[in-house]
């Protein structure tokens, strides 16, 4: 499909405002003005609608396809939350309104949403306070790491290191590093954190340990109570990567378990759409002792029920976002939490875990499952045997799934499982969908044994086949002619 620029017909009218009476040069010196035009396409409204409708048809999405993409939690995104976020009372609200005289009252509905969402997230996780400011999970990690640094600096601790297990998301070490820490990686044992390895790495210079629970293998960290004690014993802080919170809702509150800082991914656990890669939202919660370091501004509520923004927190790390984070995303998560309530959220984790274990059991004879025991919301399989016996890799299985109208699992992650296929079905997929997935996987593994060549050629039913990524990186064609 040609690019939108190739479809341009000079002179064609799109959605234009009225003709101005003047030109910019009537007010601004010529030498401050642009020479020439930017060469944007000239298209009719229908041209644009048809082009982008055409592009949309070349995408998989949760609305159309099963998307068992591990770690990403591609659950169904309720439609009503889109309408909620689009209400003019929210979508037209200027972010600087609260800074105007009397502005708190003029934005009290929005401030209440922030306040209440933070309060609900506190109750869900057992943390003492939350901020909605971070705009994605990785942004939340950076915010958390900056708060850990501020806490230690305030106490006069000389802390330079952060420990991450080798199963961690790549964002964990990257965020810690950007916050100014050195990163120490520790090896897992039997798929989970090994307390001995941790003990060997723990010293007085350790600012904290970043953990994902359940971890990226979908396994519960059963040494958690011991780990918490060990880390706190050196005045280290426990950081919770909330990518997998959807597995423990109502069954474990990380605040109760002893975590000091957590980030959540509203676009995972709380069903806001992923949008092809964003926008997300990565709120951060803290235990009592880290409250002074939360980013500003913060929403407060007085005895009369009035909401107000406050900035006077001398120990705060400052501003991680210009305003209040991705408010439009938080709105959707807030509406989702209200819709489900305590019981609904508990059913989310239960059914997510049920579905993952069901798939694990049904596929255990067809795929290698390196840690084949009760898992939580996801499990990691491996294509190692298929690779040895018939040269079919995880990548080939992924592409064969695309051919059959199913999105691939996450592949080659976590790094500690070779030929990894990470499967997360979520609670919103029906048993019929799960069974169909099992049938397809069995068929693909059968085909791997009998006709491996055909899998190496997959996908053939998608708009394009496997693309030459080496050429893309070398040729670096990242725009149309400028």
């Amino acid at each position, binding site marked *: 499909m040609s690019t939108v620029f190739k479809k341009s017909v000079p002179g064609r009218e*799109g959605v*234009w*405002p009225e003709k*101005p009476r003047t030109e*910019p040069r009537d007010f*601004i010196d010529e030498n*401050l*003005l*642009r020479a020439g035009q*930017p060469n*944007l396409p000239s298209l009719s409204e229908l041209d644009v*609608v048809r082009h982008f409708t055409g*592009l*949309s048809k070349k*995408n998989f999405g949760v*609305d159309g396809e099963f998307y068992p*993409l591990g770690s990403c939690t591609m659950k169904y995104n*309720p439609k009503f939350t889109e309408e909620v976020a689009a209400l003019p009372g929210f979508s037209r609200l*200027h*972010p600087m309104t609260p800074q*105007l*005289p*009397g502005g708190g009252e*003029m934005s009290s*509905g929005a401030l209440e949403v922030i306040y209440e969402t933070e309060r609900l997230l506190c109750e869900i996780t057992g943390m003492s306070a939350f901020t909605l400011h971070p705009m994605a999970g990785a*942004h939340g*990690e950076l915010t958390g790491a*900056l708060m850990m640094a501020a806490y230690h600096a305030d106490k006069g601790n000389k802390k330079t290191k952060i420990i991450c297990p080798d199963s961690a998301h*790549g964002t964990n070490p*990257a965020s810690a*590093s*950007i*916050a100014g820490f050195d990163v120490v990686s520790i090896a897992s044992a039997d798929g989970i954190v090994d307390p001995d390895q941790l003990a060997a790495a723990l010293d007085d210079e350790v600012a904290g340990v970043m953990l994902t629970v359940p971890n990226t293998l979908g396994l*519960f960290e059963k040494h958690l109570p011991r780990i918490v004690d060990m880390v706190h014993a050196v005045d280290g802080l426990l950081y919770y990567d909330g990518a997998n919170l959807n597995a423990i809702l109502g*069954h*474990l509150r990380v605040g*109760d378990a002893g975590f000091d800082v957590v980030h959540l991914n509203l676009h995972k656990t709380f069903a806001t759409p992923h*949008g*092809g*890669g*964003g*926008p997300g939202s990565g709120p951060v919660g803290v235990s009592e002792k880290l409250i002074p370091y939360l980013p500003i501004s913060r929403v407060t509520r007085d005895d009369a029920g009035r909401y107000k923004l406050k900035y006077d927190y001398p120990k705060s790390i400052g*501003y991680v976002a*210009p305003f209040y984070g991705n408010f439009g995303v938080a709105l959707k998560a807030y509406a989702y939490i209200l*819709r489900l*309530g*305590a019981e*609904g959220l508990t059913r989310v984790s239960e059914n997510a875990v*049920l579905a993952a*274990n069901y798939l694990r059991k049904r596929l255990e004879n067809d795929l290698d499952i390196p840690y084949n025991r009760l898992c*939580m919301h996801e499990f990691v399989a491996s294509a190692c045997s298929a690779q040895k016996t018939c040269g079919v890799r995880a990548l080939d299985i992924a592409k064969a799934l695309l051919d059959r109208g199913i*999105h691939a699992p996450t592949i080659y992650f976590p790094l500690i499982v070779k030929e990894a296929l990470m499967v997360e079905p979520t609670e919103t997929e*029906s048993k019929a969908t799960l069974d169909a997935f099992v049938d397809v996987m069995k068929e693909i593994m059968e085909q791997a044994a009998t006709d491996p060549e055909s899998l190496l050629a997959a996908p053939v039913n*998608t708009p394009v*086949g496997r*693309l030459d990524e080496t050429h893309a*990186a070398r040729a670096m064609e*990242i*725009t149309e002619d*400028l």
Partner: protein
Amino acid sequence: MPYIPHTPEEVREMLDVIGVSRIDDLFAEIPEALRPKSFNLPAGMTEMAVRAHMERLAAQNAVHMDSFLGAGFYDHYVPSASDALLLRGEFYTAYTPYQPECSQGTLQAIFEYQTAVCRLFEMECSNAGVYDGGTALYEAVMMAVRQTRRKKVVVSEAVSPIYRIVLATYTKNLKLALVTVPHDKGRDDAAALADAIDDQTAAVVVQNPNFFGVVADFTGLFAKAREKKALSIISGYPVLQTALKTPGAMGADICTAEGQSLGLPLSFGGPYLGVMTCRKDLVRQMPGRIAGRTFDAKGRTGYVLTLQAREQHIRRQKATSNICSNQALCALRALINLCLSGNEGLSRQAALSIENAHYAAKRLTALPGVELLNDAPFGNEFAVVFNDNARRVARLLMREGVIPGFPLGRYYPGLENALLVCCTEKHHRKDIDRLVRLVEKVLQ
């Protein structure tokens, strides 16, 4: 239970396959001592009840007043077709395009977005966008620090204070020296900025139009930076870019922008779009996703995420940035908006906004006790100084249903009487006339 489809019979069948008798058995590994001390959330609500609740909250926000509030975040018209296209589930319920064969829609859109913003700013390379204009500027500074291996950054005080406070938070632990060069009555002090650039300087950072709405040409300053082997970073305003001299023409190395003006709702601060563009030889320092064009075995054109070796999922702590997501849907919205407008539509938006602002400035300064902060050229926003406190003036006008702009004293001590006033193509002359009448009334 909403959004959970299993019947009790199906649950039983699934438990049987797993070989456990109850759902609770699936959570057996969580020790009793770690069980929640409370989970005191309200009971669930129907969709209808949640919507009614949200509508009640939305109604408490004052969004129906005439407003001249901008300060970097602008209420431009959003064409209906853009909302309609954005709500296609194939776009908004997709994930990051790691599987390119089933993500060509998102990937081609990113490629087209990259092209459109490069053309708009006359820059050579763009990524798929970062969180917002503030983080884009921070990432630009970090690009310069990595590229030059220097630690000093010169920033004009006329750069948005909202960006500068974010920059300060992120760089605090990194031993960077942020040198802020004071503004001169709302104008960038180009001479002082040039003087501040030395052999230790990684970058000089300016904004055009600057926070006060002032329009300038930084060609000379950027040449000075080049002499000292420092990079030039400029933050722009996409809608006005059809009118104003481009960052590319000024010789900027990196240009960032808040993309909100390209059809994104104000939405109380987000989600927005951080536009990031640069010169070709800096592309490997750029964070975030980048889509590139290639082909498959049959020679068919396709698009992939490229240069991923910069990113955290490969490089972990050595990555150029920790950023994982982008604002794909926001970038798509910006692209659709640019396509619906085209050169002519966007130029008209810019020209009407500039025209309205100049009309407002002329009418306001004709009043006794009102003058412009400076005589510099401006685009669609300008600062006026009253013979009275600007917050007081604003408060009185808001009682009459008009938000007259942003009182500057909050970020610029000494400018307590100054107000930043913005216009877009959505303002009518009668709205501006009413603003002027009310200002006249409250100043009397």
